[in-house]
């Protein structure tokens, strides 16, 4: 028997077991072959390339803006699902649910704060990510189409944030959506119709709340997930991040 317990050793032994191998389709990733398998033998990780340029890992190359935007999306999905357990998309129950989150639900305030901060930060970071990619020339061939997908991801992010804005059903939410959707009716010929369809009526009411809820919790997240998957996969297919000469030198 060993005299002291080693976490590293236990992990190594775990990776040798049949169960581990059956789940991950490999043993410990000690060689470059098994490290490659770790990537392309995994449904989720296979969106990433097996190898990346050392320079593209430098903080200055990307500031990890795309990665952090994606990680924020994960945080938002998890906190959003938890919030859905306490939420009814109905008037005025939606607002009462906000009060319940504040005064009744354990850590309800924290949950809502977390979701809200992550959402604001995601909008900010997705913008920053786009501008950063532009200034690095990351849209140039062969990355053209991935840039286009990125623009649609920005739109998806904005619509996700905007549809979520209505859900607390307070004055801030109601009037922000009223101001925003009034703009739609300025569209020539079809403006009024488009506004009617997006609100389920002529004014922001219970139908609009339900529509925004379904868009926010089902339709837009699904669109975003598909676009994110294509976006990551295209980074791999198009040959990795755009790197520049001085990316690994600090202060250049």
């Amino acid at each position: 028997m060993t005299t002291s317990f080693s976490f590293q050793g236990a992990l190594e032994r775990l990776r040798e077991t049949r169960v581990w191998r059956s789940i991950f389709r490999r043993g410990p990733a000690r060689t470059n072959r098994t490290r490659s398998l770790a990537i392309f033998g995994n449904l989720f990780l296979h969106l990433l390339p097996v190898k990346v340029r050392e320079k593209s890992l430098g903080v200055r190359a990307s500031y990890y803006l795309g990665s952090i935007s994606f990680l924020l999306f994960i945080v938002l999905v998890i906190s959003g699902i938890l919030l859905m357990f306490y939420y009814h998309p109905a008037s005025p129950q939606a607002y009462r649910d906000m009060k319940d989150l504040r005064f009744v639900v354990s850590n309800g305030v924290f949950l809502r704060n977390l979701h809200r901060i992550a959402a604001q930060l995601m909008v900010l970071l997705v913008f920053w990510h786009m501008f950063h990619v532009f200034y690095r020339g990351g849209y140039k061939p062969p990355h053209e189409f991935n840039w286009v997908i990125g623009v649609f991801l920005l739109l998806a992010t904005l619509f996700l944030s905007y549809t979520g804005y209505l859900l607390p059903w307070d004055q801030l939410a109601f009037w922000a959506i009223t101001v925003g959707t009034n703009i739609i009716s300025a569209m020539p010929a079809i403006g009024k119709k488009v506004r009617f369809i997006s609100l389920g009526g002529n004014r922001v009411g219970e139908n609009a709340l339900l529509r925004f809820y379904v868009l926010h919790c089902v339709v837009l997240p699904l669109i975003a997930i598909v676009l994110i998957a294509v976006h990551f996969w295209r980074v791999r297919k198009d040959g990795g991040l755009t790197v520049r000469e001085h990316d690994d030198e600090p202060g250049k």
Partner: protein
Amino acid sequence: MMTNQENKYEAGFSSNAKKDPVRVVFISKKTSATVTGDPGQQVMTYPHLVVREAIAFMVLVIALVAVALFWDAPLEQLANPLLTPNPAKAPWYFLGLQELLHYFPPLVAGIIIPTLVVIGLVVIPYFSVNVQGKPLWSEDRKRNLWMVLFVLVALVLLLGFSRAWTVLVPTALIGALMLYSYFAAAKSSPRREYLRTRPLSWWIMTWFILVAVVLTVVGTYFRGPGWSWVWPWSNHAG
């Protein structure tokens, strides 16, 4: 080991295994695929990238939790269609548009400009002009200067005529920087050299970002009742 005369420089397989010995090496006259760029040193994604992303995730969650513990998401009174706040503001990322709506008719500010911005962003990579990123002032300096001047004067006149001051100021600032960079002598100072060597796309994007930031900040902090100008430190700001 080359024995087959007519097939000497061709890469390929012979079907006659008895006549042709098994080739170990092919020498081809054809050129090989061009290497377009040096990919540089590469490392395995697992663990190098995966571990970094995991660390980024942990740092991010810690930071988010820390902020979420001390900053509360706003919650106002129950939605009331009969009680309009003044001003009624959109979320912050649409306040730039709301600021534009103050100057231009809804069709222009609310529909045409956002549509053009999205179309403009989508087509950026399909403008194959100037892929190398040549500076604006490198070739045809005089002609480019006149074109820049023409567009600048037209924009300033249009914005001045519409009294769109919060668009006019950042536009004029970028215009001034462009003219300054035109007259900046080569290799004078690093900052001037930087401006002097920017391509046109850089100027357009920087102008767009500056206008968007100014409009958003003004819409968020400097607009009060009736969309009038207020100072953020004065009390009556809505």
